[in-house]
């Protein structure tokens, strides 16, 4: 009963229409391959959670996978806006996208609360900000010792978290290093977890205090080399800035976007085929 399965199987078994799903990665190790598989399997009405939604969420929103986005910063880092995200928010295309908006510190605290089995997180947050007035999920709590009033927000416990990592061993133990972001918390907060990895090895050879997700915390591990492209995998490959810049043009108009998705994502059987498809242009 190996945990190591195909990405197709992992998504089919762990994600249903209407689920709440976090596909996390903080610039580093973004699970692009998994996002494409979600698009290919045609999931709908998802609530997408991510601190920093970028190109892969732009794609999923653009094809209509999502009805809601929970986030704290949305953009194409270093490039500009996410056109599909803006089109959904500003003009309801292809379907309306409700948004629930927090700050980074809050989202991080919410994942921590979720991983910690707590119903809410406490932070010194949002002082003077208009965000709480526009988000009923930002409340306050009073310190029973000092009387200070602090921000309180509900724990995040996704139905599914998907991340990309560098290595797993054959049992399915996962090692992440470099910018580890919020991935460990996102996995531990989730009901189910799928991890794509650059390589599967006999021994992780991890330093003693590394960021490890033991096999019994994840439901499926999928071997998808390059699965974070166009983001990067520390120790494996750098970010494809050219693609990130090109995305701005691809996503700007609805027709061009749809044609690109049809040709490269839906027209490819898996991520390796997608990579060959975009290489051909």
């Amino acid at each position, binding site marked *: 009963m190996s945990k190591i399965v195909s990405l197709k199987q992992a998504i089919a078994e762990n994600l249903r229409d209407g689920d709440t799903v976090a596909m996390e990665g903080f*610039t580093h190790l973004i699970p692009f391959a998994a996002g494409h598989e979600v698009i290919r399997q045609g999931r709908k009405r998802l609530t997408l959670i991510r601190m920093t939604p970028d190109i892969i969420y732009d794609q999923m929103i653009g094809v209509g996978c999502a009805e809601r986005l929970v986030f704290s910063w949305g953009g194409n880092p270093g490039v500009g*806006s996410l056109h599909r995200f*803006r089109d959904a928010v500003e003009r309801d295309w292809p379907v309306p996208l409700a948004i629930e908006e927090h700050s980074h510190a809050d989202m*991080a605290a919410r994942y*921590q609360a979720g991983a910690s089995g707590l119903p809410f997180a406490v932070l010194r947050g949002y002082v003077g900000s208009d965000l709480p007035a526009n988000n009923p999920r930002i409340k306050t709590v009073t310190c029973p010792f000092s009387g200070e009033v602090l921000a309180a927000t509900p724990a995040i416990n996704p139905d599914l978290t998907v991340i990309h990592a560098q290595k797993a061993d054959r049992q399915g133990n996962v090692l992440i290093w*470099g910018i580890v972001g919020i991935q460990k918390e996102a996995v531990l907060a989730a009901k189910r977890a799928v991890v794509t990895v650059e390589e599967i090895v006999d021994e992780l050879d991890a330093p003693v205090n590394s960021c490890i997700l033991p096999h019994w915390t994840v439901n499926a591990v999928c071997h998808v080399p390059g699965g974070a492209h166009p983001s990067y995998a520390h120790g*494996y490959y*750098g*970010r494809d800035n050219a693609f990130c810049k090109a995305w701005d043009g691809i996503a700007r108009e609805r027709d061009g976007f749809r044609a690109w998705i049809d040709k490269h994502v839906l027209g490819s059987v898996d991520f390796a085929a997608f990579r060959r498809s975009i290489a051909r242009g």
Partner: protein
Amino acid sequence: MAEPAYTPNEIMTVAAARLMSNATVCFVGIGLPSAAANLARLTHAPDIVLIYESGTIGAKPEVLPLSIGDGELAEYADTVVSVPEIFRYWLQGGRVTVGFLGAAQIDRFANINTTVIGPYAKPKTRLPGAGGAPEIAAAAGEVFIVLRQNPRAFVDKLDFVTSAGHLTGGDSRAKSGARGKGPTVVITDLGVLKPDPVSKELTLVGLHPGVTAEQAKAATGWKLKVAERLEITTPPSAQELAVLRDLHARTAKAHGQQVGEG
């Protein structure tokens, strides 16, 4: 030696960099703040500690990161921690002396909008959102802001307050529960603004060489207060410019290709 020629962006970056010292622990926003903070590190403040919200502490990037989580930041950092830790122990824990932010819009009390233009429920333009800014603005010892000065950015009334500056001025920030001093200086491509000690309204206190107070006023969406004495920014030195241009050149070269490989 003739004064070197420089662009408005360059003097803005140099002026911002000069605010940093070797004792600064700086929580760095991406873009202009990152360029200024790294220029400081590569010139007069080699021991400055740069923290990026991706979890890199003591980052020493060879080239400017395109994003807040470039591998470049992790590669030469003193340590890399998780995102919840960077916000909890390091920012909220009070370890950051300077929060260095950019902005889409700013008002006279240095409140910042990075959320929407137009109404929140049906925005004219959806901006990226808060990111780390609301808590950086509240928790850092003080906040430096760097952005280009024009009437679309310097507005009479923000469409949305994402991150608190001096709120409605006076002692409103002190009463708000925010712990840091808030914005103490705004550096633009035209000059330097600081909050009035009492009213907290941003006041033009300095100009870059060749810029007039009238130009600064015209670039501001409210009736800009101007200090009696305006300090003129010392032009960028040849060394400052050389280091900054080198940094930008290295960055452009690196980002033309893939970046982040470990």
